[in-house]
């Protein structure tokens, strides 16, 4: 059976499963649609949150980022898991007790203001749409690569599949589909990692293998990796970073952004009890942790494997002949994601770090520049091929990558559609809309969001990483502080919350645009995006944390200067703090 046939079989079978579940769990009421009828078990919910949370970014690109950056990129590991601690303790149980369908609804009620709800809707839509564009683009690329169709066809297939199970199923369909997707993606991620860990260290558990001995050399794996890459002019894999302030703020932005992203928060509305919201967060992190503990092992082992492929006799000996390159290099060359240029005309592949410090060594060895460019995003997808694993593992990876991209896209679309139909239409424009009408509006807005995201995914402005950073920055600087203050302070009032959200959001956007271009239009940036130009060395990716602090400060100052919230709002805050009398999520 050809690799193409195997891919089609795996992807087709997994999709038949998802669509089957979506039809079986078809939502009948708005409650089913938004919060899955409110009856999902914490473990089930935790698994669904895991699939929802782990997007194409986690599945496909994170390990590649760590492989390239080593210790410095541990920020992604800590940032994208540490946010769950904040969720479990500062937001989830109280928002579950509050018992409404959406995040803007809480903000609107707590700050007794339609304007606050509207500002929250805007923050939510901007954050979610930017995030979903990247997911659709990722799903499109994965489809086109594995089904061997062109990129646009891949994107349209992705859009049709998302349409089916998100639009028809709503939250109920999504929750059970995402459980299936979690299982597919975690198996796909860990199986190749186990094989590779066994091969390199003899330890079947990749997280333990990472800190074990490299069987062939008898050195610790990480020491071996350091040795190999420093011989080629790269920094040590485990090297410390100088700019600690930026590392701290970047980690903090990712953590706060995680806790403030609405598509994750609404998952906690689907459990039956307040206590279950806490357990759900714990289970979610267990399921997410399985992938996040595997990822750094995949990263270092794949980097080492890549180096030994290019330098089979060690980094000080000759590199391999281009004609003798392994099959996976040939296959990825076709996609343009691996590029080779024989700069010194010796027919070999010299891969090294082309820096001034390394120039004398390179010259002495007769090298005239780095000859191989490997796109870091292919690392996880190419991993089974690098390790010579059988074809079915490659089919599995294809199905897993698609599961990751599509489950996140579906969760984001649900958050967008509920903000529009529930908060915008029912909350402001037409409060008397029937349940059936609202459900229809939710499905229509979801369809529109899919069309917009597909269009933008087909014409990506070319800034996937910035888009993701922006989505996190917006959530961190706008929604998280408003939600947290709404629960932990009785004094913060409508004026304070609105002023805080607007300044936090505005500050963050301006700082990003100054370096990345206004509305991301290339060439419109005021300053070059290099560390020398950053204020206090803070990168635009890290600025969300500062935006959040400004949000808090402004909200407190403005609230102090204006009237305290009315008595009934203070009582509402009281009631949110105690689990007693929670009941199901209800619609008023």
């Amino acid at each position: 059976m050809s690799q193409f046939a195997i891919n089609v079989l795996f992807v087709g079978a997994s999709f038949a499963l998802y669509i089957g579940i979506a039809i079986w769990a078809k939502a009948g009421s708005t409650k089913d649609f938004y919060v899955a009828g409110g009856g999902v078990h914490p473990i089930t919910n935790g698994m669904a949150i895991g699939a929802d949370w782990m997007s194409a970014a986690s599945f496909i690109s994170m390990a590649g980022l760590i492989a390239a950056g080593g210790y410095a990129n541990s920020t992604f590991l800590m940032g994208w898991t540490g946010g769950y601690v904040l969720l479990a303790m500062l937001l989830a149980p109280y928002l579950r007790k509050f018992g409404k369908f959406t995040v803007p609804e809480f903000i609107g009620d707590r700050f007794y203001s339609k304007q606050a709800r509207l500002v929250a809707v805007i923050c939510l839509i901007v954050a979610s749409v930017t995030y979903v564009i990247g997911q659709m683009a990722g799903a499109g690329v994965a489809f086109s690569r594995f089904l061997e169709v062109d990129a646009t066809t891949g994107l349209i297939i992705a859009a049709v599949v998302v349409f089916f199970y998100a639009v028809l199923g709503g939250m109920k369909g999504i929750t059970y589909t995402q459980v299936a997707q979690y299982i597919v993606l975690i198996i796909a991620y860990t199986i190749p990692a186990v094989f590779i860990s066994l091969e390199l260290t003899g330890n079947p558990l990749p997280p333990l293998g990472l800190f074990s001995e490299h069987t062939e050399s008898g050195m610790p794996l990480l020491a071996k990796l350091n040795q190999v890459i420093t011989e080629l002019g790269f920094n040590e894999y485990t090297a410390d970073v100088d700019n600690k302030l930026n590392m701290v703020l970047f980690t903090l932005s990712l953590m706060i952004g995680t806790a403030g992203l609405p598509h994750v928060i609404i998952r906690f509305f689907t459990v039956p009890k307040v206590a279950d919201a806490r357990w759900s967060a714990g289970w979610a992190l267990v399921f997410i942790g399985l992938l996040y503990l595997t990822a750094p092992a995949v990263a270092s082992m794949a980097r080492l494997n890549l180096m030994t492929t290019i330098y089979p006799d060690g980094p000080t000996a000759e590199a391999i002949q281009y004609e003798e390159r392994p099959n996976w290099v040939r296959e990825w060359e076709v996609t343009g994601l691996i590029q080779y240029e024989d700069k010194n005309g010796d027919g070999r592949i010299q891969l090294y770090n082309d820096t001034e410090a390394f120039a004398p060594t390179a010259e002495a060895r007769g090298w005239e520049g780095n000859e191989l460019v490997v796109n870091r995003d292919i690392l996880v997808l190419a991993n089974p091929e690098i390790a010579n694993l059988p074809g079915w593992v490659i089919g599995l990876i294809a199905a897993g990558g698609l599961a990751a991209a599509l489950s996140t896209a579906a969760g984001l679309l649900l958050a967008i559609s509920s903000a529009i139909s529930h908060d915008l239409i029912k909350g402001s424009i037409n409060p008397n809309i029937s349940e059936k009408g609202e459900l229809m509006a939710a499905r229509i807005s979801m369809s529109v969001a899919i069309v917009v995201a597909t269009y933008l995914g087909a014409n990506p402005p070319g800034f996937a990483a910035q888009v993701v950073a922006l989505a996190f920055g917006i959530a961190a600087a706008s929604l998280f502080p408003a939600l947290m203050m709404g629960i932990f302070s009785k004094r913060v009032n409508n004026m304070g919350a609105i002023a805080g959200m607007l300044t936090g959001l505005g500050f963050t956007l301006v700082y990003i645009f100054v370096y990345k271009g206004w509305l991301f239009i290339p060439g419109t940036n005021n300053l070059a995006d290099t560390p020398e130009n950053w204020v206090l060395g803070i990168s635009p990716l890290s600025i969300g944390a500062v935006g959040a602090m400004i949000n808090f400060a402004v909200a407190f100052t403005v609230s102090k200067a204006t009237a305290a919230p009315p008595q009934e709002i203070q009582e509402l805050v009281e009631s949110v703090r105690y689990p007693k009398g929670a009941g199901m999520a209800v619609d008023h």
Partner: protein
Amino acid sequence: MAEDKSNAEAYWQANLRLIAGCLVVWAAVSYGCAILLRPLLSGIPVGGTDLGFWFAQQGSILTFIGLIFFYAWKMNQLDKKFGLGE
């Protein structure tokens, strides 16, 4: 009614203390051991590198998981003790 109120207040204060304790650990493993204190911990070897690296790529994630379950378990006890559970 007054008794209800002071009971509820005591529950909330206990919750805040618990959260503060958990967040100290949360910050200590990630911002502390993994980032700022890494140079201080560089003398402790772990599998070919140092303790700070281990915290950055593994230790903090494991601690986060433990923290959430500890918090959920403690809160269940508080819910019962103060009679404010469901």
